């Protein structure tokens, strides 16, 4: 019977042991990455595929969390793929890298080992121009087919290019304002290559989408099993569709009502987060992370500051965040998890037919939490709350909201009293109400049990994360498997369900709501106990805008939607640097879509939106 499983055991099988084993079996193909501030190993890309198999099968790193590219222009002039692999039973990361030339970049595809590499390799091809021989479907994923160049390369410049690094001279310190459009002849954010062929201008991006699926026309003639001639239809859903959770698009082929194949098409909200992030200073990026998964901005902040703090701790002057700061962070993150899950469940109900009525109840509760965020951080959604080594502000004594015209409960309230009431009464009551309406609801059960099944093996192999992974019976929660902040000392269970269907994922979310409340209950006394303690290590904002020493870091957190990771490379320099060289977001919404195809095969068209809703994606994070 599915119940909340005990926390995943912390295996202490050392990473060093694994590396030694690899070194012993492949002495010439493996070398330690001994650049200053780096870790892990560099693998000869000719043998990458074999070694990857060993890493997965012999060493047990069955979960490929992140695969991303870095362009080392001017520092060795090579491209590098960086992989972070984990054991699904818990523990630290094995980082391995493969290098290739910038000019003819090519690295063997690892899709045959970890299916989860699929979209990530396509992204590396799209944005960096690295080819992956062996990839079954290597085409652009975020930009459209036919776009000129690979924009994340360090020598590619956008139309509004101004300077390599922020702050731009034009804005600071002298500072004057100009509009970028005015500098462009076309008054728009465009630049064309010189060889543009204007004689035959056709939008080929659409054809490319269908061609890559092997779909020439809209209707394919096929024989059904009884020998009747029938038609296979191509159905396009999105990017404008009421239930695709934003500008997401799926191309399905259907046989009658049954889905035979599904292909996600994305990039409609690709806002170049990473390119902009590499021009920004470290501090600039915090508000940008808010806009990734815009339902739970606090969690995004947390992952990012953890990654940068990892790098900072390599330097000389770094102070750990204080205990109060950590407790506040955890509280904010758990509150956003509650918001996230309420939202996810509500909109999933939209998708399976309970249109907009149930979600109103959840939005109501969310509003209350947002009021709190607004009073503490200054903004409802985009909290921009965490800083390196600290926070933007401590809790105010009283919550005074200025913009709440309609809801007056929050006008002027004692903060701790408000929180206590929320944690001990309001949120549990909402969860009870939710369960009462839904958990045994016959329609809901009919619609969701046994639909969108993802097996545990597939979930791991496809790098699924968060409730999607735990709904498939894998008790993997980073808060337990690889603890950060103060989660280690907090008492909570990892929610897990075995069935792997939509209903199981719903159950996981409900359980996590309860676990979050449980964590919050433990946080409140900690806040009382640390009252008066500064949120900054030395009492004043120390690392507000830090100079970050040389090195790489991967910070990951368990966000509402799954594993949110930040891979950051700092170019260092004599006194550290204010801008990241590489800034990559391992987005759970993006990677969780990798198994969407296999999860929907064989189900009805009407289930597809439900399956998508049960994964819970946010497009800001999917497309970045």
């Amino acid at each position, binding site marked *: 019977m599915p119940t909340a499983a005990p926390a995943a055991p912390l295996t202490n099988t050392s990473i060093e042991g694994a590396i030694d084993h690899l070194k012993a079996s492949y002495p010439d193909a493996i070398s330690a990455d001994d650049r200053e501030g780096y870790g892990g190993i560099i693998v000869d890309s000719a043998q990458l595929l074999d070694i990857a198999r060993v890493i997965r099968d012999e060493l047990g790193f069955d979960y490929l969390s992140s695969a991303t590219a870095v362009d*080392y*222009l*001017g520092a060795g002039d090579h491209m590098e793929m960086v992989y972070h692999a984990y054991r699904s039973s818990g523990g630290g990361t094995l980082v391995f890298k493969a290098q290739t030339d910038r000019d003819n970049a090519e690295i063997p595809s690892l899709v045959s080992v970890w299916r989860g590499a699929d979209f990530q390799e396509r992204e590396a091809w799209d944005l960096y121009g690295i080819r992956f021989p062996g990839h079954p479907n290597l085409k652009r994923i975020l930009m*459209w087919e*036919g*776009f*000129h160049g690979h924009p994340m390369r*360090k020598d*590619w410049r956008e*139309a509004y*290019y*101004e300077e*390599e*690094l922020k702050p731009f001279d*034009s804005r600071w310190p002298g500072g*004057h304002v100009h509009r*970028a459009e*005015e*500098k*462009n*002849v*076309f*008054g*728009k*954010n*465009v*630049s*064309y*290559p*010189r*060889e*543009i062929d204007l004689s035959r*201008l056709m939008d080929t991006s659409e054809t490319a989408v269908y061609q890559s699926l092997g779909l020439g026309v809209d209707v394919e003639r096929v024989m059904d099993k009884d020998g009747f001639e029938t038609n296979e239809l191509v159905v396009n859903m999105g990017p404008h*569709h009421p239930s695709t959770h*934003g500008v997401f698009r799926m191309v399905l082929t259907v046989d009658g009502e049954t889905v035979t194949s599904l292909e996600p098409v994305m*990039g409609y*909200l*690709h*806002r*170049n*987060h990473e390119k*902009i992030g590499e*021009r920004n200073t470290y501090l600039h990026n915090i508000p940008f992370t808010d*806009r990734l998964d815009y*339902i739970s901005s606090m969690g995004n902040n947390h992952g990012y500051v953890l990654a940068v703090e990892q790098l900072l701790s390599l330097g000389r002057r770094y102070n750990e965040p204080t205990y109060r700061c950590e407790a506040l962070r955890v509280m904010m993150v758990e509150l956003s998890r509650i918001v996230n899950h309420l939202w996810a469940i509500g909109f999933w109900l939209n998708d399976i037919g309970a249109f907009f009525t149930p*979600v109103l109840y959840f*939005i*109501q509760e*969310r*509003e209350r939490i947002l009021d709190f965020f607004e009073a503490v951080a200054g903004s409802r*959604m*985009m909290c921009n709350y965490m800083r390196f080594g600290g926070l933007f502000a401590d809790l105010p004594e009283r919550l005074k909201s200025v913009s709440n015209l309609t809801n007056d409960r929050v006008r002027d309230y004692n903060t701790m009293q408000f929180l206590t009431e929320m944690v001990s009464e309001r949120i549990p009551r909402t969860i009870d109400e939710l369960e009462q309406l839904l958990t045994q609801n016959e329609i809901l059960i009919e619609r969701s049990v046994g639909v969108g099944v993802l097996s545990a093996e597939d979930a791991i192999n496809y790098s699924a994360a968060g409730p999607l992974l735990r709904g498939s019976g894998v008790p993997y929660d980073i808060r337990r498997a690889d603890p950060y902040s103060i989660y280690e000392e907090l008492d909570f269970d990892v929610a897990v369900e075995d069935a792997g269907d939509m209903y199981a994922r719903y159950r996981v979310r409900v359980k996590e709501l309860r676990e979050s409340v449980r964590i919050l209950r433990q946080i409140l006394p900690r806040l009382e106990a640390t009252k008066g303690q500064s949120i900054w290590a030395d009492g004043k904002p120390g690392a507000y805008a830090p100079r970050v020493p040389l090195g790489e870091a991967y910070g990951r957190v368990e966000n509402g939607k799954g594993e949110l990771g930040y891979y950051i490379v700092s*170019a*260092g*320099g*004599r006194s550290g*640097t204010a*801008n990241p*060289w590489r800034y990559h977001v391992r987005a759970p919404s993006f990677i969780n879509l990798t198994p969407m195809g296999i999860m929907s095969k064989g189900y009805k068209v009407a289930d597809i939106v439900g399956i998508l809703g049960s994964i819970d994606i946010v*497009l800001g994070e999917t497309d970045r």
Partner: protein
Amino acid sequence: MDLNLQELNATEFPVPAELESNIAITSLSQLYNWGRRNSMWPMLFGLACCAIEMIATASSRFDFSRFGFEVMRATPRQADLMIVSGTVTKKMVVPIVRLYNQMPEPKYVLAMGACASGGGPFKEGYNVVSGMDKYLPVDVYVPGCPPTPQALLYGMIALQRKIDGQSIANGDDVPWYGAGSAEPTPVPVLGPDIIDPRQMDMIRRQAERAAQEMTALGTRELPAAMQLAPAKTAASTAAPAEAAPANGNALAYELPTGGTPWTEAEDIREKRRLRALARKALRASRRASAEEE
């Protein structure tokens, strides 16, 4: 919506007090606008973060149905108002323009948030359109990132005011009663970069010019990308007043010889550091001299 006929009364003709809630004497324009402004159906269409606040505005706490934005329709054919709620990307602007063309007249566009109004925080991104108004006529801009629900409501009420001011007698206000069907907005094309069909001629001219100049200079082997911004050095050293917009005819090329490699980036940072030190020294000396005085 409460039906308040007194709101409609717009003449000096007296209406007997006992009939005030049954009879109104008004102008046709006003009646027409009154009907339209109180039944604006927005399109159920979210782009990015702002869409979440739009949903919050639609839900019970803020509830824009109170103002006549009764219900959101997913199909453009039943919608009067397109709330562009989020970052418009080049890839997405194509379907947006198509959706707009499918909306029946009269139709309105509300740009919600910094992104839809002018590109917002992501403006410099290579896939981002600097504001919806680059492609569609926008009626109301709502600032904010994201605008609070209150701000969005205010914007929607501003749109109603705009409608109030329109007159049925003025062809410019109600072009949909003009002769012939309305011209659809040309749908952008995704080529090597996004192409606005309305700029085709301009692009062609620029390309020809570029080709000619290249021939004249005999520099065929120059790198492919054509940078349209003025050269970086000019931009960054020019005084604010001199940073005039590029002449519409002149193509200012900057042929990218490559981004800043790791080592050079270090130089930039080093220079910055030295500049900062110099500024610091300057401030210190100023302070010292001030103290002397």
